[in-house]
């Protein structure tokens, strides 16, 4: 614990830890010192001079080294001749800070007068107007008149696209450098920067495509003026017209807390629509950041005109609209008749309530509850997951994070950011991946392996440990560590806290299952289990995959057989036919297929019954993150008429099949869930909605301090405890990769990209230009061998079928390996031999 320092700020006594900056000390006792360039998440730079205050320090007697006292026995305070910046000056004992003196007021007036010398003052049309720090601080501290000539204002570009998502207004920029420092310090991707100097200083992007970062939207939150605006919200509404609704991002397992800003719109026929997505503070999950996928794709799908709004039944081979009663009756009858032969196949996009009810229904009809997931190990994550109180933001020197088989930035961007920052703070970062990823730059240890050998790598690391705990079983002996693996293993074992994140890179179900077991062993043997900041985290493909595991859904390797032999298949929030054509064939063979979806997917097209559902922003529910934190989301906009939430559909089908199920409200389903699922015991919507004060204090009426992210007043959720305290070494059956890359054969490897063609991403207008068509990645040598060049249209031969794609050359790809991104139209789900051919040129 750092030593406490006492000082006076504006006649208020303050006690803060040593090293605290004056602005923050003032903030803690509710005194506002205005800032522009300082941001509590970044290092101070002292560029804008807005925070100038008068600072007095006790006079020290040179001989006695004691403070000099006046007649009354009070220390004599000596004030400096000049104002000092409160954002760069740390507190010291006995300091006296004056933030309201005439000198300080004059200082602020002058700084504002300077900042406005070339400011366009087009507040009426500025998207920041109403929540603008410059506007607010000018009103509060500004001089009221300017001595500068209006005609000498600079006229600069007002619509300068930094990228597809962010626009810059060069006149409005006050050169505080927050955006540049965010990209550089926090993200570590300095794709924007300053150009020119003096009065001509301006922001420029240095990447191609422009502002190429998954975190770009955050700069618009922290920009203290309206210089940076997002393309989706530009001129969308004035801030005071928007209502905030708390939610949780539905795009990946991080579970970032967000706020939907909603407003009624004439364009939407007077309905409420979501105008923008802003972060909501949760220091243990996403701090005050979100990624661009959440900001630009997280909601737009809900507004898509393609949404299904009526149930459909197949009649004479055609899907025709029907009433809910009729559709549910048909489904219930067929399901009942299929008792014992029902397969429920659900995606991780569903909420816990949906999954619980679906599981109840499936169990009641003696069916199988199957999870759509290409990676396994969820049960292990529940048992060996990080304990309550975990916060990646607290990890630093002495702690270790191991990221294996994951391109973390593509799979879970905010985890990437937090892991990177932990590494910045001195945590040992061990990155284990077959190819270089963006995390490698921050890694202490980088281990490579051949695709398919991830488990062997972890087992070798285990072998490198000098464990006194248990004798290592004999089957482990054959995994001999090399010196890099030994070093990494030792570093991990020696760390105070250790977390392992395992992901989706090159993974299929059996392999990842083994990998999870191996990781669990490593955690057990290095004693990184059962306490906060220790344990296993699954980087799942969907927001609530962990919840689905917890509700009892399990993935299966035998989907094809299962579908084709099922008497009824119930597909919810998944598109197996679209993912893999062979599953479409299997579904054709099953007797009865029900699809519950937002859109008419490929699977829905071949279904016997299609049931339309409510989208996430239109309903209530909970998600469980990869760190096993259960968080609530709230209804933001009204659902289109005719759709019903998933949990309710499941319950109504259940009731018609003679089961007793809850269909009235998500909260009641959750109450049942909490009573029956042991890990969730004691949770309720009320406990999930509890909050406590977080630091830094943001989102109140001082937007200049933290930016426009929202304060969290609607709930921080509850992190679950790992379910089992059993400690043992699991037997791991690692199998050599089925296809060894021989001389000229090519190995196809599935990888994950953030911007894919998932059902909720494709309808996004903003991201449209960023979502690529099908492409594959090879390295130069492979490309040369194939006699192909970058951006060549090719055909990927996969299990006898040809898929068109663009070939891209990427030096990070290992030789003879073809990386195939998931969800971009090529159904590669496991390591598989592939072939590449020149695309047949189709005459235009």
């Amino acid at each position, binding site marked *: 614990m750092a030593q406490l320092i006492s000082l006076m700020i504006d006649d208020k006594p303050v006690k803060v830890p040593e090293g605290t900056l004056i602005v923050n000390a003032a903030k803690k006792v509710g005194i506002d010192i205005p800032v522009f360039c300082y941001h509590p998440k970044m290092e101070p730079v002292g560029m804008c001079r807005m925070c100038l205050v008068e600072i007095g320090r006790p006079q020290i007697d040179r001989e006695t080294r004691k403070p000099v006292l006046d007649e009354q026995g009070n220390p004599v305070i000596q004030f400096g001749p000049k104002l000092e910046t409160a954002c760069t000056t740390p507190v010291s004992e006995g300091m006296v800070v004056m933030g309201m003196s005439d000198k300080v007021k004059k200082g602020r007036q002058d700084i504002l007068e300077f900042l406005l010398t070339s400011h366009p003052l*087009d507040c009426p049309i500025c998207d920041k107007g109403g929540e603008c720090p410059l506007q607010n601080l000018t009103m509060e501290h500004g001089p009221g008149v300017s001595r500068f000539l209006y005609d000498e204002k600079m006229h600069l570009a007002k*619509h300068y696209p930094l990228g597809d998502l962010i626009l810059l207004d060069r006149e409005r920029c006050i050169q505080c450098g927050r955006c540049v420092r965010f990209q550089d310090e926090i993200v570590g991707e300095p794709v924007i920067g300053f150009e020119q100097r003096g009065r001509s200083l301006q922001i420029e992007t240095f990447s191609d495509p422009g502002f190429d970062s998954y975190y770009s939207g955050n700069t618009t939150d922290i920009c203290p003026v309206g210089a940076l605006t997002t393309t989706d919200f*530009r*001129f969308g*509404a*004035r801030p005071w*017209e928007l209502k905030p609704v708390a939610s949780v991002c539905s795009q990946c397992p991080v579970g970032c807390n967000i706020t939907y800003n909603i407003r009624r719109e004439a*364009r939407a026929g007077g309905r409420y629509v979501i105008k923008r997505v802003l972060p909501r503070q949760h220091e243990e999950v996403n701090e005050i950041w979100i990624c661009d996928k959440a900001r630009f794709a997280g909601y737009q799908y809900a507004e898509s005109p393609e949404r299904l709004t009526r149930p459909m039944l197949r009649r004479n081979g055609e899907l025709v609209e029907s009433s809910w009663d009729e559709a549910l009756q048909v489904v219930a009858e067929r399901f009942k008749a299929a008792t014992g032969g029902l397969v429920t196949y659900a995606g991780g996009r569903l909420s816990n309530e949906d999954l619980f009810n679906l599981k109840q229904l499936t169990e009641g009809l003696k069916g199988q509850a199957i999870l759509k997931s290409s990676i396994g190990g969820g049960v292990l994550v529940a048992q060996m997951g990080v304990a309550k109180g975990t916060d990646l933001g607290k990890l630093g020197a002495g702690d270790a994070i191991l990221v294996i088989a994951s391109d973390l930035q593509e799979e879970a961007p905010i985890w990437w950011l937090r892991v990177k920052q932990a590494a910045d703070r001195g945590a040992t970062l061990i990155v284990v991946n077959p190819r270089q990823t963006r995390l490698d730059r921050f890694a202490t240890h980088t281990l490579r392996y051949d695709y398919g050998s991830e488990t062997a790598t972890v087992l070798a690391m285990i072998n490198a440990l000098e464990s006194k705990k248990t004798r290592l079983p004999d089957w482990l002996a054959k995994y001999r560590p090399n010196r890099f693996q030994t070093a990494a293993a030792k570093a991990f074992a020696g760390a105070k806290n250790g977390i392992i994140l395992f992901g989706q890179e090159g993974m299929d179900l059996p392999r990842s299952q083994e990998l999870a077991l191996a990781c669990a062993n490593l955690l057990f043997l290095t004693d990184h289990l059962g306490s906060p900041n220790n344990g296993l985290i699954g980087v799942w493909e969907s927001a609530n995959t962990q919840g689905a595991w917890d509700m009892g859904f399990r993935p299966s390797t035998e989907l094809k057989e299962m579908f084709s032999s099922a008497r009824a298949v119930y597909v919810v929030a998944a598109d197996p036919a679209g993912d893999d054509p062979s599953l479409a064939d299997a579904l054709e063979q099953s007797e009865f297929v029900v699809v519950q979806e937002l859109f008419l997917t490929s699977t829905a097209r071949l279904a016997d019954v299609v049931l339309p559902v409510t989208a996430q922003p239109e309903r209530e529910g909970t998600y469980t993150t990869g760190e096993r934190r259960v968080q609530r989301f709230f209804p933001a906009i009204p659902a289109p008429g005719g759709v019903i939430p998933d949990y309710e559909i499941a319950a109504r089908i259940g009731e018609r099949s003679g089961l007793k199920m809850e269909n009235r409200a998500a909260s009641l389903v959750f109450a049942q869930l909490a009573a029956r699922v042991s890990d969730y015991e004691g949770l309720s919507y009320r406990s999930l909605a509890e909050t406590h004060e977080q630091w830094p204090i943001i989102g109140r009426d001082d937007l200049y301090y933290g930016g426009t992210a929202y304060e969290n007043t609607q709930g921080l959720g509850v992190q679950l405890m790992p379910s089992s305290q059993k400690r043992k070494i699991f037997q791991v059956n690692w199998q050599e990769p089925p296809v060894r890359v021989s001389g000229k054969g090519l190995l196809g490897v599935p990888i994950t990209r953030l911007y894919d063609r998932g059902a909720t991403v494709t309808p996004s207008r903003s991201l449209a230009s960023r979502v690529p068509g099908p492409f594959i990645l090879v390295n130069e040598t492979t490309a040369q061998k194939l006699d192909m060049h970058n951006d060549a249209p090719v055909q990927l031969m996969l299990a006898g079928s040809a898929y068109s794609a663009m070939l891209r050359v990427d030096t990070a790809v290992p030789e003879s390996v073809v990386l195939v991104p998931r969800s971009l139209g090529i159904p590669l789900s496991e390591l598989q031999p592939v072939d590449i051919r020149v695309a047949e040129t189709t005459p235009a």
Partner: protein
Amino acid sequence: MLKEIVRGLSTTFRQIFEKPVTIQYPEVKRPVRPRFKGRHILKRYDNGLEKCIGCSLCAAACPADAIFVEAAENTDELRYSPGERYASTYEINLLRCIFCGYCEDACPTEAIILGDNYELSFTDRRSAIYTKEMLIEPVKPGGKPTPQKVEPGKFTRSIPDMQDPQD
């Protein structure tokens, strides 16, 4: 008694020959006072561009919450108003309006003024909502209707005449 009758009738006869104060509304209309506040008009510049820049400040100022604005972005191909922003939707609910004129005061471009028209009667609530098309004044002679195709870089300022905020 007779005296009283004569006095009364003389008043009557005097009035008969005076100019009547009643006017034959609606055939005849009395001109309104200079500061009369009637139905709103959305103004145009002489070249036809709309003065309204879709800033919603009128809506924010309105004590009756009668105004609804939605904005969109201008391009030089399709330009409605000078600068980047224009009102793509502009509606005033005249059942809510209390004709206070705050909207006039709030407008940074003097785009909205309360005009002379007081003939506001509706048969249903819906028709009390005046849309942009109903509120905007006709294009002056020599001007062009909006959206206009204009030469690039000419109309970059939303508030062209604001030289000094104190004016």
